[in-house]
């Protein structure tokens, strides 16, 4: 889904979504893990 016309990359939204999705997943996952561990320590 990438077309390079005259050196300009066209499309490639699948890569963009992969990158953003990975970022959201990692940040949310890490936040969850911290929240979970925090609760476990509080007890």
């Amino acid at each position, binding site marked *: 889904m*990438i077309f390079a016309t005259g*050196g*300009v*990359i*066209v*499309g*490639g*939204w699948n*890569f*963009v979504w*992969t*990158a*953003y999705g*990975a*970022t*959201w997943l*990692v*940040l949310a996952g*890490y*936040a969850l893990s*911290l*929240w979970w*561990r*925090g609760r476990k*320590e*509080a007890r």
Partner: protein
Amino acid sequence: MPSGYIPGALGLALFVVLVAAAKLAGGKVRDNWEHGIGLYGLGLFLWGQYSGLFVAPREAMMGDVGRILYVHVPAAWISMMAFTWAFAGSFGSLMLQAPQQLPKILGATGAGGALGIAAAVALDGTPRKLAAFFGVLLVLAFLECLVLYLGHRFFGWDADSADHFAESSTETGIVLGLLLLFLGAVFAKPTWGTYWTWDPRLTASAIMVLTFVGVSLLRATVSDPDTRRSWVSVATVIAYINIPITYMAVKWWRTMHQLQSTPNTLDSDMTFWLRVNAWAFLFLAMWFVARGWRIAAARAAAEAPPPLPPAREVAR
């Protein structure tokens, strides 16, 4: 476009207010102040991500793929920032082993730094560069010691709490660093046609993350808390100081093979959205580190040594 520094300045002001409130109010506020900065970071993050995807202009050469920069670059900056915090925490932990020495060190580094800067202004050529380098280094050490001194005076920081800070910072740095490496691969495929480029920055980042993974494994290996603290502090300091020389070596190695580097000519709109996202990552990372700090402190309290047994009758 307004300046990209405004959301950052607001967030930092909020941070100061929250810390002050936590100090003054105590109680529930004291134990939960970081959620304020976390929520602010989350707001910025939602705004920045939406804008990065749909509002920001298309990059001239890379087209929509250039939007990956809005997550890739903040991840790089803030993981580096987290490792810097880890270094500061570990250095602080070593310093706080003898907090009574801090005023003396403050005097020495302050005077040395001022002298170095003054010499840099007066001198020329290579001596100027050297004086400036060591002057700035000493000023940074002075600032670090000042923060440590104030933290020790007003927030009761000691070698252990500085180490807990280093622990959670290292963890945050590793999480963001691994994300960065993944994003680097995703970014490299459409732009350079391969999942991994031996780009100096990417390579040096990979080595940096590996180094800190080693350090955190060391932390997991040592069981005695005091030994662990001093060993990990030393290992963190060495790992951090090694970063520039690694970067230099990798850069040198690559420039001899001529490889394209990341385009750095962004227009001002893109810079604005990049900054918004970077601030968002920063404030989220602050929340991560603060939470991790609490968790580490709670765990240390749980493994605190038992009290001394009562004195026994001595027969004579």
